[in-house]
C-alpha cells in the first residue's frame, strides 16, 4: 500500500524551501518595518539613577524612546511567573524594562524605535543611563552564603527549597540506608553553565490593524498560543483580536519556550501605540546576555551499596543556580531530582535542592532540562561504585536496572508534570547488551592495552538515562479534507527544526490512506489552531502526533459513513487507498475522498463542477431528514485532542571511546555509540538527526562550552568567537541503534525523542576520560587545560 508511511524515512517536506533560501524566519519578514533596539544594563547589579535621552533625540530617523515609566497597566507589572510551585516561596521575575534595579548584565532598560536597526542602535549609544553600582552576587556557593542579596526581599538568595524522599523496601530512610550499608561513598560534583544558543536568536514582528483593531504578531517562539494569551492579557486586548504566528524558526532548544519575553509584549505594544509595523531581531550578544542559560549545579552525593554494587540508599543535595529570575519556576531542578534515578532502582532515596539567585542571566530549560546534570550525578555514582568494588562498570549498572517485567514501575516521586513518576515501558538489559556489542565493550581492554603499548591513552565510558517525554496537559489536531481532495492538518504547537510538517503528514497520510503529497501541515499559527501548550519536553510527536491521529480517525469514520451511503455498502466493508474509498476486495466500487468531501457539505450555491454535486437539486435526497443530519456537521473535518494521564518514558544508553594526548591533554572522541528507545519510530531519519544533534550539543557541554563570568558579573565570552560551540571538526561520527518498546499509554505507541541525545554525554565522556587517565573526573566541562591541571595536581 502506497500510503503506509508511518515508520519510513520520508524526505522532509519543509526542506525544499529551506535549502533554496526560501524559508521565512522572523527577520526575513516585515521589510520596511520600523526597528527596535534596546539599551541594556552594563552592570550585573545596580540602581538606575537617571536616563538622559537628550543626545539621542537628534538622531535622524528616531521614532520613539521608552523606559519603564512609559509602560501602562499590566505592562508595567513584573513578567509572569509561568509555573508556580509551592516550594518556590520566593519566585521573582523581571519587569519588561528595568524598574529601579538591574540584576544582570543585559537586562533591558530602554527601548528605542527608529527607521532602521542601524539608526536605532545609534540612538541607543547616545542614551546615558546613570547607575549606582551595587555588590554583584556571582558564583553559586557565594550566593548560597547569602552575604549579599540579589533581591532585597529574598533572604539567603534562596528562591526555592524542595525535598523529595522515597523510603527503602523496609521503610528505612535514605540516611538510615546509607549509614547501614556495607559500603559508602561521599563526593561532590560540579556542572557548569551552558546555553541553548540556537543559530537564530529571538525576534518579534508586530502589525497593528487600526481599522480592525486587531494585532498580528510573528514571534520566533516555541509556543505561539501562549504568547498570544500573554499579549492579550498584557495589552488588554480581546483574545480574538490577537493572532500569533511562529514562522520558520531557526532552532529553539528550550530558550524560546520562555514567554512572554520582554520584547514579545513591548514590540506589539509599541506597534499599536505608533500604529506602525515594528520588528526587533535579537543580535548574538543580546542572546548571550539577555535570554537564558542552564546547567549550573553543585551536587553533594552520599551513596550506600552492597558487595554487588546494588544501591541501598542515595542522598543527593543540589545547589541549583537560577540566575537573577525564575520565570519558568523550578522545573529544571525538579527534573534533575527525579530523572537522576535513570533506569535504576536505588533503594531509599532523598533529594534536596536549593534554587539560588545570582546576578547572572536567568536559568530556564535547555534541551535535556536538568537531566544531563542528574544523569551526570547518577552515572558518576555508578562508576565510583564500580571502581570501589573493582567491578565492570556495566555489571554494576545491570545489577540495579528496573527489569522488563517490572513495568509499570513507580519510582515513588512527583515528576515535572505534577504526576507520579511511573515508567511505562522499556527494556534496559537489552539496550545495554546492544550497546556493549555496538561499541565492543568486552574487547576494549585488549584495545586499550595495545594502545598503551604504543604510548597512547584511550578510555571507554558508558552512560544510561531515562527521559520522561510527552508531558501534558494536552495538544490538539485539526484535519480537513477539502473538495479538491487535499488534506489540511493543523496543530497548535510550533516547530523549530524537528520536521513536524513531515512526521505529522506521515501520520495523517497513514491514518487516512492518502498520498502524502496531498497532505499539508501547519503548526504554531493561532489562526489555524488556538488551543495548544507548546513544543518542549520531547512532547510534540507524542502529543500532537496522537491528537492528529485521533482527529484523522474521526474524519475517516465520517468519510466511510458518507461513502457507504453513496456506494450503498456497509461502512465496515470499506477501505481507503490512495485517496479512494472502496469496498475491500472490490476496487471498482469506489469513490474519491474529494467527492466524499463534496457530499459532506450540502450546498445551495455551486461554484465549480464538483460543487454542483452537493447542491440541493443535484440528486435524490431523503425528504424526511434535514440535509445536515442531527448530530452531524457539514464538511469533512475533525478535531481531537490527546491528553495523557502522565508522561511516557523513553530511554537510552551511550558509550564513547576517547583518546587523551599525553603531552597536550587534548581530548579526542574516537568513537561514539548510541542505543536509543523512543518507542515506535515515525521517521527513523528524523529521529537519527535528533540524536546526532543532541549528542553534538552534549559534546559541546562536556568539552567546550561554559559561561565565563568574572567577579563583577560580566559574561566574558558572549560571542561565537569566545563561546566554543562545536564545528564539524569536533563532532565524531555517531553510531546508532534503535530499540523499540512501544508506549502503552498512547494510541501510536510513541515516546519523545527530541532531547534524548544530549542527556548522558557529559557523564559518558567524563567516564571515558577517567578511564583513559585514571584521574577522577567530577566536574564538567573539561578542557585540555583543565585536564592538564588535574594531571599536575595528582
Amino acid at each position, binding site marked *: 500500500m502506497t500510503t503506509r508511511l508511518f515508520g519510513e*524515512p520520508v*524526505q*522532509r517536506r*519543509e*526542506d*525544499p524551501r*529551506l*535549502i*533554496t*533560501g*526560501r*524559508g*521565512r*524566519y522572523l*527577520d*526575513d519578514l516585515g*521589510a520596511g518595518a520600523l526597528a527596535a533596539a534596546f539599551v541594556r544594563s552594563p552592570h550585573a547589579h545596580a540602581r538606575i539613577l537617571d536616563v538622559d535621552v537628550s543626545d539621542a533625540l537628534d538622531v535622524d530617523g528616531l521614532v520613539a524612546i521608552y523606559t519603564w515609566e512609559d509602560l501602562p497597566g499590566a505592562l508595567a507589572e513584573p513578567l509572569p511567573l509561568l509555573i508556580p510551585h509551592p516550594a518556590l516561596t520566593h519566585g521573582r521575575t523581571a519587569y519588561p524594562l528595568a524598574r529601579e534595579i538591574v540584576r544582570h548584565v543585559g537586562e533591558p532598560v530602554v527601548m528605542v524605535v527608529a527607521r*532602521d536597526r*542601524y539608526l536605532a542602535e545609534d540612538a541607543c549609544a547616545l542614551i546615558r543611563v546613570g547607575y549606582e553600582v551595587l555588590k554583584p552576587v556571582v558564583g553559586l556557593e557565594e550566593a548560597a552564603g547569602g552575604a549579599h542579596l540579589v533581591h532585597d526581599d529574598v533572604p539567603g538568595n534562596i528562591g526555592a527549597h524542595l525535598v523529595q524522599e522515597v523510603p527503602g523496601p523496609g521503610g528505612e530512610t535514605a540516611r538510615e540506608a546509607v549509614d547501614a550499608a556495607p559500603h559508602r561513598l561521599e563526593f561532590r560534583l560540579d556542572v557548569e553553565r551552558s546555553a541553548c*544558543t*540556537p*543559530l*537564530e*536568536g529571538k525576534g518579534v514582528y508586530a502589525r497593528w490593524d487600526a481599522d480592525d483593531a486587531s494585532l498580528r504578531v510573528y514571534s520566533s517562539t516555541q509556543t505561539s498560543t501562549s504568547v498570544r494569551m500573554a499579549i492579550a492579557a498584557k495589552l488588554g486586548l480581546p483574545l480574538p483580536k490577537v493572532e500569533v504566528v511562529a514562522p*520558520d*524558526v*531557526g*532552532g529553539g*532548544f528550550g530558550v524560546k519556550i520562555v514567554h512572554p519575553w520582554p520584547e514579545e509584549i513591548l514590540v506589539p505594544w509599541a506597534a499599536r501605540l505608533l500604529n506602525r509595523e515594528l520588528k526587533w*531581531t535579537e*543580535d*548574538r550578544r543580546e542572546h548571550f546576555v539577555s535570554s537564558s542559560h542552564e546547567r549550573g549545579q553543585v551536587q553533594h552525593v552520599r551513596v550506600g551499596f552492597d558487595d554487588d554494587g546494588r544501591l541501598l540508599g542515595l542522598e543527593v543535595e543540589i545547589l541549583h543556580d537560577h540566575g537573577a529570575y525564575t520565570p519558568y519556576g523550578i522545573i529544571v531542578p525538579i527534573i534533575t531530582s527525579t530523572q537522576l534515578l535513570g533506569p535504576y532502582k536505588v533503594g531509599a532515596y532523598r533529594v534536596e535542592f536549593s534554587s539560588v539567585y545570582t546576578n547572572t542571566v536567568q536559568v530556564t530549560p535547555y534541551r535535556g532540562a536538568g537531566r544531563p546534570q542528574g544523569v551526570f550525578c547518577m552515572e558518576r555514582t555508578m562508576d565510583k561504585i564500580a571502581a570501589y568494588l573493582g567491578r565492570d562498570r556495566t555489571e554494576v549498572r545491570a545489577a540495579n536496572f528496573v527489569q522488563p517485567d517490572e513495568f509499570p514501575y513507580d519510582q515513588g516521586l512527583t515528576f515535572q508534570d505534577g504526576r507520579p513518576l511511573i515508567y511505562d515501558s522499556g527494556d534496559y538489559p537489552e539496550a545495554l547488551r546492544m550497546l556493549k556489542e555496538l561499541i565492543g565493550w568486552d574487547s576494549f581492554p585488549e584495545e586499550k592495552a595495545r594502545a598503551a603499548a604504543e604510548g597512547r591513552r584511550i578510555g571507554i565510558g558508558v552512560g544510561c538515562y531515562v527521559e520522561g517525554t510527552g508531558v501534558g496537559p494536552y495538544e490538539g489536531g485539526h484535519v480537513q479534507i477539502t473538495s479538491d481532495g487535499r488534506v489540511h492538518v493543523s496543530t497548535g504547537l510550533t516547530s*523549530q*527544526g*524537528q*520536521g513536524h510538517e513531515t512526521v505529522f503528514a506521515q501520520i495523517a497520510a497513514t491514518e487516512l490512506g492518502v498520498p502524502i503529497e496531498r497532505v499539508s501541515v501547519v503548526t504554531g499559527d493561532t489562526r489555524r489552531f488556538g488551543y495548544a501548550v507548546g513544543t518542549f519536553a520531547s512532547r510534540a510527536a507524542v502529543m500532537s502526533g496522537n491528537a492528529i491521529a485521533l482527529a484523522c480517525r474521526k474524519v475517516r469514520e465520517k468519510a466511510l459513513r458518507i461513502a457507504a451511503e453513496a456506494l450503498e455498502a456497509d461502512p465496515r466493508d470499506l477501505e481507503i487507498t490512495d485517496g479512494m474509498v472502496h469496498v475491500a476486495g472490490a476496487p471498482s466500487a469506489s469513490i474519491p475522498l474529494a467527492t466524499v468531501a463534496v457530499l459532506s457539505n450540502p450546498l445551495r450555491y455551486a461554484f465549480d463542477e464538483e460543487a454542483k454535486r452537493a447542491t440541493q437539486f443535484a440528486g435524490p435526497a431523503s425528504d424526511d431528514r434535514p440535509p445536515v443530519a442531527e448530530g452531524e456537521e457539514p464538511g469533512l473535518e475533525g478535531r481531537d485532542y490527546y491528553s495523557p494521564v502522565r508522561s511516557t518514558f523513553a530511554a537510552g544508553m551511550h558509550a564513547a571511546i576517547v583518546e587523551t594526548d599525553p603531552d597536550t591533554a587534548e581530548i579526542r572522541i574516537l568513537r561514539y555509540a548510541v542505543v536509543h528507545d523512543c518507542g515506535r519510530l515515525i521517521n527513523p*531519519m*528524523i529521529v*537519527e*538527526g*535528533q*540524536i*546526532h*544533534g*543532541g*549528542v*553534538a*550539543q552534549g559534546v559541546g557541554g562536556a568539552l567546550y562550552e561554559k559561561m565565563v563570568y568574572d567577579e563583577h558579573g560580566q559574561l566574558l565570552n558572549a*560571542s*561565537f*568567537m569566545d563561546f566554543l*560551540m562545536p*564545528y*564539524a*571538526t569536533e*563532532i565524531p*561520527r*555517531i553510531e546508532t541503534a534503535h530499540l523499540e518498546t512501544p508506549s502503552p499509554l498512547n494510541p501510536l505507541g510513541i515516546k519523545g525523542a527530541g532531547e534524548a*541525545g544530549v542527556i548522558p554525554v557529559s557523564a559518558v565522556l567524563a567516564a571515558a576520560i577517567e578511564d583513559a587517565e585514571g584521574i577522577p573526573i567530577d566536574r564538567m566541562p573539561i578542557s585540555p587545560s583543565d585536564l592538564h591541571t588535574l594531571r599536575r595536581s595528582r
Partner: protein
Amino acid sequence: MRVNLTVNGRATAADDVWEGESLLYVLRERLGLPGAKNACEQGECGSCTVYLDGTPVCACLVAAGQAEGREVVTVEGLSRGDAPLPGAGPAHGDVSGEGLHEVQRAFLDAGAVQCGFCTPGLVVQAHALLAEADGVPSDADIREALAGNLCRCTGYEKILDAVRLAATRLGPPP
C-alpha cells in the same frame, strides 16, 4: 551611496547605502534576498556565506562598498538554471530536476536539514568545496572545508553525508 553589483547573474544596484553597511544587509534589506542569514555578525558561524567573485565569503564581514562592480551569488542563485556560477565547472552549474542544484538535492536526500537557519551558508560552502574537489573529498577535507559553518541542530553527520552524496552524483569536474 549607490552600489552596483551583479547578483545571481543579474546586474543590479542598491541605493542609499551607508558606507558602513554590510553586504549582508544590502542583500537582505535592500535587494530582497533573505536567503543568507545573520546569526553572529562576526564571521564565526558562516550562515551568511555567499560567493563574491567566485570565492565564498561571510557577507556580514564584507562592507557594501567592497562589493561595487563585483559578482555575488547567493543560495537563491544556486537553484536557478540561469545563474552562472563563478568558479564552478559546467557540471557544477547544472541544476537537476525541480530546479535544485545537486548539492541542494543531496541535502534533501540525506536529511541534512533541521531548523535550516545555517543551511543556506552550508549549501554555498559545500558547493564551493565540490566545485574544487576531484571526486569525493576525504572525511577530513569535508570537515575542514565546513569548519567555518556552525550548525546547532544536526551534529553535522548528515551534512557530511550530503556532501559525499553530492560529490558522488556530480562526479569529477570535467
